[in-house]
């Protein structure tokens, strides 16, 4: 029965000792330890959050880079296309121009040739007329130097000039 009868002395000392132990450990052990642990956990949480944020930022940057690269590539593509178009257009324009100019030149040349030809013909006609006149004059002069021949000429002429 002694075994299960709490003795007053031990209850008394246990209560006092436990309260002192609780008080001192609370003040000098549990508070600093739990404080240190929780501040460390806090700092770990912060560090993790910061790392996460950095990672996200990195991802954003990478996405940005990707986008910029894409844009640059598209721009280059566009520029190249434009250049090619322009080249083609220029070539086409040049061709057109050249053709027009050539046509014009040909037309002018033809015109010039025509007018030269006309002038040449006119001149030739004039020269032929004057030459004919000279010839005619000379012939007439010669023919008309003797009487017989004048008559013969008129006769020949008349003979040739059939009236029709």
């Amino acid at each position, binding site marked *: 029965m*002694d*075994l*299960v*009868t*709490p*003795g*007053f*002395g*031990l*209850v*008394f*000392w*246990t*209560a006092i*000792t*436990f309260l*002192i*132990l*609780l008080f*001192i*450990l*609370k003040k*000098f*052990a*549990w*508070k*600093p*330890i*739990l404080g*240190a*642990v929780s*501040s*460390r956990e806090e*700092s770990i949480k912060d560090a993790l959050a910061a790392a996460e944020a950095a990672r996200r930022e990195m991802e954003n940057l990478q996405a940005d880079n990707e986008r910029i690269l894409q844009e640059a590539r598209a721009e280059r593509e566009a520029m190249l296309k434009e250049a090619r178009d322009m080249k083609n257009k220029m070539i086409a324009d040049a061709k057109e121009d050249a053709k027009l100019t050539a046509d014009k030149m040909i037309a002018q040349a033809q015109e010039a040739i025509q007018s030269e030809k006309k002038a040449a013909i006119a001149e030739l006609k004039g020269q032929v007329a004057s030459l004919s006149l000279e010839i005619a004059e000379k012939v007439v002069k010669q023919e008309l130097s003797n009487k017989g021949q004048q008559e013969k000429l008129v006769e020949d002429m008349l003979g040739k000039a059939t009236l029709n």
Partner: protein
Amino acid sequence: MKLSAVRTLFLGIFLVMSFASVAQDEDSMIEETLLEEKTEDKKFDPKEMIMHHVKDAYGFHIIDIGENKYSIPLPVILWTDNGLTTFLSSEFHHDYDGKVVVEKNGGKFVNYHEKVYQLDAGAETLQLGEDGYPVNAAKPLDISVTKNVFMMWVSVLVLFLIFIGAARKYKKSENFIPKGIASFVEPLVLFIRDDIAIPMIGEKKYKRFMPYLLTIFFFIWLNNIFGLIPIVNGANLSGNIAFTMTLAVFTFIITTFSGNKSYWKHIFWMPGVPVPMKIFLMPIEIVGMFTKPISLMIRLFANITAGHIIILALMSLVFIFQTVAIAPVSVAFSLFIILIEIVVTAIQAYIFTILSALYFGMATEEHEHH
């Protein structure tokens, strides 16, 4: 830090032992020869031996070498009709059969089965009744520093060394990285917090109870372990019902004072059941308030004491059979039980703590839906 703490502990034990040998009295020889004669014709009584070892004692008995008994004398502090009376336990000369009468402060005191009795006026020797209890003596109010109280203080010193040392480590280290003893203490502290306090009490309110839970866990655990150290003769503090009762009463007080409205409502007027049931449940719940700490008290006491009794009983086999041949069996079995007991030290501390936390959790729980 861990090493130096262990060194300090050993140094302390050696100091205490040298003190003990000094304290051995010369004039106790006469008394001891008397005792020897008496014990020789007495047969070995395992029950008495076990009970003697399981119970508290006034002196800190270390070892017997031949005829000499070595023990650390501890103060006996009594409150008698003549006021405070103190003397050292060595004045009983290792007697606990009520044979040695110590006269102090006008009173005569004897140690009968490790309880101090004050002889009634006029009585010279202790008379025992039929039931084996003294008839001509009364127990004075006794607040002696007994073996258990002494070991409790040693455990308190060790706890201070370990935990205040650990707390210092944190202060010194940068980024609160645990070093030295702190790295040994931290997992245990975190275990109490993450596996006992937070699940039982809840994230919001656990902080208030943390110092208490940590303190009882380590206090009980360390004293359980101290109870297993053979050299200190099993100062069976955590297997003493006074100790477990005191701690259980603390848990009860904290539970009762932190009980919120819904806790009391669940005791006196259980919500969600018909009125006759409410009336029926009320006395059960009121009894439940008290059975919880009582179960704490008995569980720790019974587990630790039972372990000690088993080990001592196995050791007694040698003396019961009066042969050394049984010794290997005794040693093997008690070694096995001691190994189990080492596990039990932690388990019982854990159970006491987790149940305390559970009761605090029940007292502070917020019931939102019913």
